[in-house]
C-alpha cells in the first residue's frame, strides 16, 4: 500500500501505469477508519492487477479539493493520469469497491 501525498501524487498516481486505486481518508472520519481493513484486504487480493494507495486528506486538503474530493470517504480510480471512476461516501462499501475493481481491471 502506497501512502500518497501532495509531493508524490503526480508521480505515484497520475504518472503510474495501469489502474491506480486511491483511498481518500481522514483520521477523524470514522467511516473511513471502518473501511480501511476492507481496503487493505482488497489491496492484498488485487495488488498484482492494480496499484493501491491511500491519501490522508488531513495534511493534503488542497490536493484533495483539486481532485474534487470534499467529503469522505472517497475511493477514486485513475488510469493514464485521468480519474476514470469514483465511489462517494454513500457508495463506499467493501462489495461496491470490489465490484468496481473487477469492472475496471
Amino acid at each position, binding site marked *: 500500500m502506497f501512502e500518497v501525498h501532495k509531493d508524490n501524487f503526480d508521480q505515484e498516481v497520475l504518472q503510474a501505469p495501469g489502474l491506480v486505486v486511491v483511498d481518500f481518508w*481522514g483520521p*477523524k*472520519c*470514522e*467511516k*473511513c*477508519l*471502518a473501511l480501511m481493513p476492507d481496503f487493505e484486504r482488497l489491496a492484498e487480493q488485487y495488488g498484482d492487477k492494480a496499484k493501491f494507495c491511500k491519501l490522508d*486528506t*488531513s495534511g493534503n*486538503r488542497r490536493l*484533495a*479539493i483539486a481532485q*474534487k*474530493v*470534499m*467529503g*469522505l470517504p*472517497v475511493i477514486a480510480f485513475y488510469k493514464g493520469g485521468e480519474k476514470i471512476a*469514483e465511489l*462517494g*461516501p*454513500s457508495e463506499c462499501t467493501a462489495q461496491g469497491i470490489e465490484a468496481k475493481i473487477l469492472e475496471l481491471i
Partner: protein
Amino acid sequence: MSNIWDIIIVGGGPGGLSAAMYGARSKLRTLLIEKAKPGGQAASTQDMENYPGFAKGTTGPALMQAFADHATSFGAEIMRNEVVSIDAAQKIVYCKDGSQYQGHTIILSPGAIPRTLGVRGEQALRGKGVSYCATCDADFFTDLDIVVLGNGDAAIEESHYLTKFANSVTIVVIHDEGVLDAAPMLQERAFKNPKINFIWNSTIQEIKGDGIVEGVVLRNIKTNETTELETNGVFIYIGTIPLTDFVKGQVNLDSRGYIITDERMETSAEGVFAAGDARVTYLRQVVTAAADGAVAAVAAEKYIIEEEGFAESVLHESRPVAVAFWTPMIPKCIEIMPVIETAIAAYGTQAKLWKLDTYRNQRVAKRYGVVQQPTVLFFHQGEVVNRLGEDEITPAAIKGILDSIL
C-alpha cells in the same frame, strides 16, 4: 446449546454498547453485531456536551470508544457483520455474508441515518461539497463559505462546530425569523456567533455545481421566490430515518418505521427487545439510547430466567403439572392456594404443582390467555390439556382432571 448466545445485539451505537455492557456484566453470553465501526451516530460528532458527567464535554468518538471498551471488558463479543434479516420467533439473525446466529433473546439497536433532502444535485454532489457529517468533512471547508440546512439540535450544534473551520456558515431555516427547534442554550450560542448568518422562511430547492458544489438555489416558502447563493459546501441536518427495514414483518413498526416497544423495551415479538433511536421514543440522545440499552438488557436477562424456569419446570416435565396462575395481591388467590396445594399433594410424586406469580411473569400468562387470577392450567408433555377458571377450582375438579391424564 453452547452455540446459542444469551443475547444477540444488532447495532453498536450507544444503545447497543450499553446493552452489551449490562448483558456481559450479568454473565450472559453477549454477542454484538455491528456493520461498521462501533459508535454509531454518536461517533460522528465532535461536540458532545450533554452526556452526564462530562461537564467540559468530551468527543463523540472518545465517548464511544469508552463505551465499547467497557462492554468488552466484561466479556461482550463485538463482531463486524451486517444483519440482513431476523427470525423473531426462533431468535435467529441472518447476516449478509450468509452466516447466522441464534440467541435466547435479541436486542435491536440499529439507530438511524440522516434523512436526505431529495433535491437536484444532492446525490451527484455528495462527497463534493454535500455532506451529512461535519466531523468527517469540516476540514475541507477551512476558510470557505458553507450553508447548513436544518434548525434542530444537530443542525445548530454542528453549525457551531463548523465555524471553527469555515469562513462563514449560513443556516437556512424553514421557520419565521428567530424561531429554531434547537435547545435554547444552542440557539443562544448560535445567535451570538459572528460567523453564523441565518436565512429564514426558506429551504434549498437545488444544489448546483460542476463536479463540486458551487451554489444553492433557495426558495422562500412564503413568497415562493427563488434566489441563488454561492457556496462551497452544503451540510444537511433535517432529521433521521430509522434503519429498520431488516426487521419489517418480524416486529411491529409505526407508520414512520420506528420500532414499537413497551416500557421494558420489549417489541411485539416475545424476547425481542429494542433500544435507542430506532424506537418510538420522546428523546433521541446518547444518554437515552444508553438508558434504553440498560433496560433492554435487564429485561432480556429476566426473560431468559423466566423462560428457562418455565421450560424446565413445566414444559419438559414428564409428569402432569398444574400451573397455578396467582398473585398475592388478590385475596381470592391467597384463599384458594391451600385448596390447590392439598388436592395436588394427594398425588404424591405422580403430579406436580408450579405456582406462577402473574405480577412477576405477565408474559407466560398472556401467552396462555390467562386474564383472571386464580386460574389453573394443566400441562402434560409440554401441552395444555385442561384448565380451571376462578370459580371452577375445587378439589373434585382438580382430581377429575388429574385422574383423566394419569
